[in-house]
């Protein structure tokens, strides 16, 4: 079988179970909260309008934003209350999805109650039913079709929206979709989409069965439907194996290929050391660091310049070694985060040229480039020329090009390959540098900030020697040309490899 497909299918059971778990829990909460809310509100005209407005409003927030919102909210709540509230993963996903499920449940709940013939309600009252009996014996059974239709809508929406839970670190079918999209691995995307669709259709089908069972007063339909729901709950929530003896380590990754490859490499090392591992792929850039500091993930790779500017809000540009040194101290002191060490390559802005062209002009550093620049053309990505990095090199080396052109990244690489431009702004670990046989030019005056790939560990792992020992072999072990090659394996269109395969290749002989 195609290895990408095999890998996606291999990941499927765990992800499907997690997806099912968070969706079922959210639908359950939606029902448990939404129906009483609908019952309470429907007799109160003013409350009803306000409630329907409010749940409608929640629905207008894009699901992605709603999910993202709960991460910082829970983080602040956890800090303020001093409780160990997990801000990443199941809880924020559950809250956001439950809120999302409310609208159809509340709206149909109110409609179901409003649709009951007043004569029937009066008869129920007239024969002496209590409010509770009226609800259980008359209103619920009569409203059931409309209520169930609402629950069905909620189920389909929730299962669809749960793919986005990936962005807050809750595993779901979204893991396959997002990582597949990033690495242009369409099989993976397809498996993820199909998996989510199958779950949604199955949920809809089961609820339809219950609905038709109630409508036709068919006991076996209702029993079968409820049995299937119970089975789904068992699958989702009863642990598969006996309580794990091994510790589980959670590995984070941001949302681009290099991060997936490095997370796989970390995973390989930790598994070899006997740890059970879980992945949180596709985290937002600042979410990843906060998640580490909060202990929601145990380990991930970030880049020194990013941490320096975004996490520590620094604008100065010390030399690479000093920046690493300071980061180690400041992050440890402030957040308890441990910098295990640099992996050995940078993913930084760099100026790059075709190898023959550079040799022909005798250029290997920015100093040498400055002399020839007035006869050369610079191609840049859309933002490079407005960034502080460009101003810094321009000033430090007195760079003056004959011409500047801006391209989207793909076209920028084509332009340097076909000679439309001589020099481009590249990311130093980009696979296309290897693919197109480009060279990056040295920066002897250290004008460009360094973006050393750093292996970071969560506070609770900072003194865990077994854990650190398992990962230390990665420190200094990944040369930039190897990383480029690995990135290329995943990003190219022909003979494409999965991040896990690239990681194994990367670790094969270092």
């Amino acid at each position, binding site marked *: 079988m195609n290895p990408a497909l095999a890998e996606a299918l291999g990941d499927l059971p765990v992800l499907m179970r997690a997806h099912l778990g968070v969706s079922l829990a959210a639908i359950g909460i939606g029902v448990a909260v939404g129906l009483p809310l609908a019952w309470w509100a429907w007799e109160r005209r003013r409350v009803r309008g306000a409630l329907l407005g409010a749940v409608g409003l929640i629905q207008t927030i894009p699901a992605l934003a709603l999910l993202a919102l709960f991460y910082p909210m829970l983080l602040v709540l956890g800090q303020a209350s001093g409780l160990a509230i997990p801000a990443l993963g199941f809880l924020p996903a559950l809250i956001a999805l439950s809120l999302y499920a409310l609208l159809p449940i509340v709206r149909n709940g109110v409609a179901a109650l409003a649709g009951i013939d007043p*004569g029937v309600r009066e*008869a129920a009252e007239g*024969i*002496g039913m*209590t409010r509770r009996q009226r609800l259980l014996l008359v209103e619920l059974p009569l409203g059931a079709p409309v209520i169930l239709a609402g629950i069905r809508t909620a189920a389909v929406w929730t299962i669809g929206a749960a793919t986005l839970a990936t962005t807050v670190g809750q595993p779901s079918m979204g893991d396959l979709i997002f990582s597949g999209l990033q690495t242009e691995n369409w099989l993976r995307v397809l498996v993820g989409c199909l998996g989510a669709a199958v779950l949604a259709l199955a949920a809809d089908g089961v609820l339809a069965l219950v609905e038709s069972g109630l409508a036709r007063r068919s006991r076996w339909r209702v029993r079968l439907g409820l049995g299937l729901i119970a089975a789904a709950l068992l699958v989702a929530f009863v642990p598969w194996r006996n309580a794990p003896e091994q510790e589980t380590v959670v590995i984070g990754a941001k949302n681009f290929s290099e991060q997936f490859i490095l997370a796989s490499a970390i995973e390989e090392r930790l598994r070899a050391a006997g740890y059970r591992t879980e992945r949180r792929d596709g985290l937002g850039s600042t979410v990843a660091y906060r998640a580490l500091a909060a202990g929601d993930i145990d380990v991930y790779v970030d880049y020194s310049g990013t941490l320096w500017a975004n996490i520590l809000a620094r604008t100065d540009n010390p030399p690479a070694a000093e920046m690493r040194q300071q980061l180690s101290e400041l992050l440890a002191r402030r957040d308890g985060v441990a910098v295990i060490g640099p992996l050995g390559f940078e993913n930084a802005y760099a100026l790059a040229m075709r190898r023959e062209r550079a040799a022909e002009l005798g250029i290997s550093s920015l100093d040498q480039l400055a002399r020839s620049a007035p006869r050369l053309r610079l191609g840049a990505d859309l933002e490079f020329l407005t960034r502080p990095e460009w101003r810094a090199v321009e000033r430090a080396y007195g760079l003056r090009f004959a011409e500047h052109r801006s391209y989207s990244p793909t076209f920028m690489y084509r332009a340097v390959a076909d000679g439309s431009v001589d020099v481009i702004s590249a990311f130093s670990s980009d696979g296309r540098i290897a693919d197109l046989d480009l060279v990056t030019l040295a920066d002897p005056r250290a004008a460009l900030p360094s973006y050393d790939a750093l292996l970071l560990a969560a506070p609770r792992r900072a003194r865990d020697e077994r854990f650190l020992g398992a990962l230390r072999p990665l420190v200094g072990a990944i040369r930039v040309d190897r990383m480029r090659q690995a990135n290329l394996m995943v990003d190219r269109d022909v003979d494409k490899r999965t991040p896990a395969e690239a990681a194994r290749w990367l670790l094969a002989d270092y």
Partner: protein
Amino acid sequence: MIELADVTKRHGAGTALDGVSLTAAAGEFVALVGPSGSGKTTLLKSINRLAAPDEGIVRVDGRDVRDMPVTELRRGIGYVIQGIGLFPHMTVAENIWIVPRLAGTPATEREGRVAELLDLVALPREFAGRMPSSLSGGQAQRVGVARALAAGPRIMLMDEPFGALDPVTRDELGRSYRALHDSLALTSIMVTHDMAEALLIADRIVVLIDGRVRADLPPAELLSSQDPEVRALVDVPRRQAERLHALAEGR
């Protein structure tokens, strides 16, 4: 047994009941007649507390209904609502058995009791398993009466219980209900638009017009009332009877 003292009920600007006083002694059969909108349904509802009067007192067995637990009050009163009000998701048997079920009567008694009640309202026993949607209007009304009788109440409030029946069944059912009323020693108040029916089966007839009691008399006395509005009501069946009589005589 049932007593309304100066009961007034307003709906916004309108007055549904305007100082109504009325008594129905134990075992009595009272018919309530009057034009549409005159307050008949409201009067019945004030007895089982589906409507709360703005003024006045309603007593059942000498107790102010407001002092009685509302479910206990209602379960002791059989109520046949205008417009039937059967539960559409329950079979005929389940509808009939609902009040005993609420009262916790053992389910073992259900079958026999349901059959008995179906006999009483002249419906075939096979109807027990049917859904209300498959019944004709008159059949559904009879189930409504059976449901009201199911828990063995001492009091029956019936809001046009036989309105949708054909004249033959209506007459039959009216008479068999009257027999039941006597044998079970019920106290019944029945709303009807049919003056002849009222005159023939009730002990007393209360005429309600614009929320006021216009007449409260036994049938024979009502027929000789001089009140023009009451006369207008009783003249209808009387004239019909005379015309029928004339027709039969061949004149």
